[in-house]
């Protein structure tokens, strides 16, 4: 909505600068997003012509003495025929920016001699001001224009650009904004006059209105003006519409638009002689009914749309656009003027359904009050009489089936204001503030309302009448906001919320997730967050299991790349890896914790929280002392181990298979304590999958954990013994074993078997070797075994015996032999 300040000031005599008006409106919720000035003149002021005398050397020129206010008087040469003593004129001193009257080019005014006389300035024409091409004479200003002030204060327009929230259609009229400003600066706004001469016969004797669809048309007011003279509007009216970016049409149509932009009530004028039977019928369209609208397009209507019709045909699309068949033309003599109230949702659906956005719909769709219809009608009749003449009928036709359906009065107590805002404002301040906005608070008996009665006499209470232009005010809380935004939010105290703190509920899943996040970050892995939507084709690249439930599909995706919700985090992880591998020189080790979306065929989809990590590239950023090895499976496994350790979950790794990962290089992660529940997977990405993502250097290791399963594993571990064990105070005896084994025997098996001996405190592999000196198909495993007892120092005989028994077991069960 655009609000020309000169227009607004017709209703409220505010003298504040535009910026200050904008600031106050914005703080009060009527947001001003811009201030446009149609002209900004530099160095041009209002001057007063004190005297005019002939030029000594030229008949057509004259010498004019101009009063510049505080800058004093000055004499300049002027060639305009219309310059005269006593005029207020636009004066440019030396250095001002003006348009050259002959060439039309912008330039800085220089002092000069004209026919031998010095002229340190100039009295300007419209052309020289850049306002039009008129160079016939000088611009003569209003005699009240303040001498010495910048010209932009009296000529040209300042327009506020408003971005309104949908609850304030009243500010879709200049008067509505003026009322706001009036309340905010404490001036009050003047309402336009609604009276006019009713010189014609009774409106009811001329026309008839029938509302057949009362649910969609709560009120319809109309009247007839006979004998209008259709033609162009006067300049002032055309100028006002142009300032709003509207194209003037003719005086009758311009009057309806003017009133819409003034009051916010859309109106429509019909050529009364084209309304068959002089009978207006408001009804639903018939399915497939056709109507050519004013824009010349033939529309096919549905039975959900509301039309204005005569007994023979539709003549307008109610509250959206008039019909071409009843349009006002130069031949129009008699006018039927409509000002109605239409159902907001229906109006919006109709306009959207036909792709027809009109200024009328912008207002009706926000829900106008029925009271505004009659005000708009009366204002517009007066306007038409003024600009197009004619005789207005006596009275107006007013069909109002929705009367009584609106909230007109709200019961408000001082106690409610206190309960909502937390501040006790004096009753007089409440009353005055509401009045400034057009509300009429009438003191009510406390007994009239429940809450007031409970407070006894301490609380003042009012029945507040809502003005006809405010559809957004229906409950006491709405009035509280009116008070707060006018009095000021800074007038409300600040108290930190106190009172009861709700009962704490455990949030196991959330805590677990954050622990996992921290563990992975501590393990040196960077967190990432990606888009949760993808495309089926992109997702195919990770070769998800066919058993994965279906996709959640977007009905209106922003792009084909975001057509479905992801069912896996792997795709984003690999895509991200691929992107970063091109631009990042160090290791790429990243993880994401997020939801995947699985459609099980009914209700909302399952949202499962998953963890995915991807690791590859050089282990360390190029370092002066760094060994340059690449991240691999065991880095990913280490990350999983770090997570399990942080959660105090015992995990088991067993050979696994996964369609994204390379065969033979995958481990399933399970929780023995949770009955072998699978919590995740770790492995190296299959080379074909790498290729699909454009990754050319491997290995790329990946892990995936299911947070819900991890939660169950945590629960299962919690029921077991405390993680704390007293640590041995007796010395430990480390011994190293070099074992020869078949290549296929997992080291984990060996360690498990060694650790089964009750004197063994720990066992770890410190070397794996295949090759020279070791038979093909065999490997050498170096294991450090630490022997320790809780109650004594072990003798070397005891350790020897334990070692022997371990070797026996390894030999008989795993075919291991001691390497010589």
């Amino acid at each position: 909505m655009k609000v020309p300040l000169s227009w607004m000031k017709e209703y409220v005599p505010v003298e504040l600068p535009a910026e200050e008006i904008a600031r106050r409106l914005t703080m009060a919720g009527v947001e001003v997003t811009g201030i446009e000035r149609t002209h900004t003149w530099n160095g041009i002021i209002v001057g007063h012509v004190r005297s005019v005398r002939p030029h000594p050397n030229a008949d057509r020129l004259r010498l004019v003495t101009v009063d510049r206010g505080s800058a004093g008087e000055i004499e300049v040469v002027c060639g305009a025929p219309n310059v005269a003593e006593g005029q207020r004129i636009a004066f440019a001193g030396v250095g001002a920016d003006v348009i050259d009257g002959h060439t039309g080019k912008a330039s800085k005014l220089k002092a000069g001699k004209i026919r031998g006389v010095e002229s340190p300035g100039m009295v300007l024409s419209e052309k020289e001001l850049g306002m039009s091409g008129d160079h016939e004479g000088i611009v003569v200003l209003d005699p009240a224009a303040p001498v010495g002030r910048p010209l932009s204060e009296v000529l040209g327009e300042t327009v506020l650009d408003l971005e309104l929230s949908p609850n304030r259609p009243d500010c879709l009229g200049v008067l509505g904004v003026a009322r706001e400003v009036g309340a905010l600066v404490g001036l009050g706004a003047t309402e336009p006059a609604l009276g006019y001469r009713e010189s014609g016969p009774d409106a009811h004797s001329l026309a008839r209105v029938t509302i057949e669809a009362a649910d969609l048309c709560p009120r319809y007011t109309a009247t007839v003006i006979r004998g209008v003279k259709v033609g162009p509007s006067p300049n002032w009216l055309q100028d006002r519409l142009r300032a709003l970016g509207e194209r003037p049409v003719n005086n009758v149509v311009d009057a309806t638009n003017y009133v819409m932009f003034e009051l916010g009530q859309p109106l429509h004028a019909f050529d009364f002689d084209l309304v068959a039977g002089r009978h207006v019928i408001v009804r639903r369209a018939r399915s497939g009914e056709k109507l050519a609208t004013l824009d010349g397009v033939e529309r096919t209507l549905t039975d959900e749309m509301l039309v204005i019709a005569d007994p023979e045909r539709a003549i307008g699309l109610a509250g959206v656009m008039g019909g071409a068949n009843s349009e006002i033309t130069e031949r129009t003599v008699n006018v039927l003027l409509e000002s109605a109230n239409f159902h907001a949702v229906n109006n919006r659906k109709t306009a959207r359904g036909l792709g027809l956005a009109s200024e009328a719909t912008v207002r009706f769709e926000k829900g106008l009050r029925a009271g505004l219809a009659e005000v708009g009608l009366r204002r517009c009749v007066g306007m038409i009489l003024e600009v197009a003449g004619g005789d207005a009928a006596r009275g107006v036709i007013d069909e109002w089936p929705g009367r009584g359906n609106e909230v007109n009065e709200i019961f408000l107590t001082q106690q409610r204001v206190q309960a909502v805002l937390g501040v006790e404002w004096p009753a007089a301040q409440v009353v005055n503030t509401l009045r400034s906005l057009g509300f009429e608070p009438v003191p009510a008996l406390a007994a009239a309302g429940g809450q007031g009665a409970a407070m006894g006499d301490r609380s003042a209470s009012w029945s507040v009448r809502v003005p006809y232009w405010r559809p957004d005010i229906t409950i006491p809380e709405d009035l509280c906001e009116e008070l707060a935004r006018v009095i000021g939010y800074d007038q409300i105290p600040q108290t930190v919320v106190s009172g009861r703190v709700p009962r704490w509920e455990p949030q196991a899943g959330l805590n677990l997730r954050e622990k996992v996040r921290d563990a992975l970050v501590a393990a040196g892995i960077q967190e990432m967050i990606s888009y949760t939507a993808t495309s089926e084709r992109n997702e195919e690249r990770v070769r998800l299991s066919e058993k994965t439930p279906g996709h959640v599909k977007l009905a209106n995706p922003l792009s084909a790349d975001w057509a479905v919700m992801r069912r896996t985090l792997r795709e984003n992880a690999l895509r991200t890896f691929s992107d970063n591998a091109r631009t990042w020189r160090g290791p790429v080790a990243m993880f994401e914790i997020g939801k995947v979306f699985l459609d099980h065929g009914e209700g909302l989809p399952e949202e499962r929280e998953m963890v995915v990590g991807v690791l590859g590239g050089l282990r360390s950023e190029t370092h002066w002392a760094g060994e340059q090895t690449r991240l691999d499976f065991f880095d990913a496994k280490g990350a999983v181990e770090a997570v399990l350790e942080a959660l105090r979950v015992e995990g088991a790794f067993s050979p696994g298979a996964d369609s994204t990962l390379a065969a033979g290089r995958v481990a399933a992660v399970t929780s023995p304590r949770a009955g072998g529940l699978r919590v995740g997977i770790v492995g190296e990405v299959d080379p074909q999958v790498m290729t699909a993502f454009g990754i050319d250097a491997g290995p790329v290791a990946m892990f995936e954990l299911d947070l819900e399963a991890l939660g169950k594993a945590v629960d299962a571990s919690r029921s077991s013994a405390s993680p704390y064990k007293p640590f041995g105070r007796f010395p430990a005896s480390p011994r190293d074993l070099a074992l020869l084994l078949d290549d296929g025997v997992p080291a984990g098996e060996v360690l498990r078997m060694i650790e089964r001996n009750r004197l063994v405190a720990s066992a770890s592999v410190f070397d794996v070797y295949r090759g020279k000196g070791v038979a093909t198909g065999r490997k050498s495993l170096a294991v450090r075994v630490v022997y320790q007892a809780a109650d004594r120092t072990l003798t070397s005989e005891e350790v020897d015996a334990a070692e022997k028994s371990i070797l026996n077991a390894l030999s008989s069960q795993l075919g291991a032999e001691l390497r010589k």
Partner: protein
Amino acid sequence: MTEPLPTTDLKQLSEDALSALQVLDTSDPGAVEKWRVEFLGRNGRLTTVLRGLGALPAEQRREAGAAANSLKEQLEQRLEEKRTQTLAAQAARAESLDISLPGRRMRRGRLHPSTQIIREICSAFNEMGFQTVEGPEVEWERYNFDLLNIPRDHPARDKWDTIWIEQPESRRPPDGQRILLRTHTSPMQGRVMERQQPPVRVIVPGKCYRFEATDATHEWQFHQVEGLVVDEGVTFADLKGTLYEFARRIFGANRRVRFRCDFFPFVEPGVDMSIDCFGCDGKGCRICKNSGWIEIMGAGMVHPKVLAAVGYDTARYTGFAFGMGPERIAMLRYGIEDIRHFFSNDLRFLSQF
């Protein structure tokens, strides 16, 4: 026959030992040992002198003994000094560390900047008794709009351009409810209040989605953090004070806040909160577009219709709600120029936080 006086012997011994030390290479253990054996050893010259003391009268013997011991101490001290000097000289000669070389660091991981800000916001409110709860991202229209006083076909819905989920006719529930990607975290208001009675005090972080073309300041996916308080006697003054307290914790203890009227259908009165710019302390700069103020969040008193929709007694209970965008806060705080960085996962971006 006269024994030479021990003191004379000691003087000579001292001179000999020191001059020998002068040229001794203390880094050669053999040479050091040889010197020690010669002068201080079991059969060395000092011991010999001390042994000779036995023949002297008691008075003289005590004197000479003290002198001999003092000389022994002195010689050992000189040996130690010489050793230290040699080590330092050696160190200077040998490979010394260039301590300006970069340290050997553990690989570091970092939390995503959005996670960091969300954690900061949530813990500030957790400390004020708010419990963190989360809800689904694919949501019923009922929770995202209907229960929040945003009716279907109302222009108020225009503010939330929505991405809808494909829903075959067969999967529409009888009430015609549609499924969407939540456009804000506010649906949790209804979900939380439906399952519990006041007092309610929750903070809700999560991902949200809008049908919006992306550019440097618009993203179709983003995070939001929502807060909700409902109880007896909760007022706008509480809203102001609580959010002010939050602003101090996140943006600095001396921040000022400003409230401005704004419209959200699920609150009344509705406001947005700004803080005085941390870039310029309110004087005006690029961050605050020269206004001195930065808009941080929307807030308001919970609309009675929202309370009534979940069956709360609106005469008894009042509440306030607020919502803010972690990415916006991160952008302001770190001067990030393009919101699209957040989900592009470029390590050149992520590794900076």
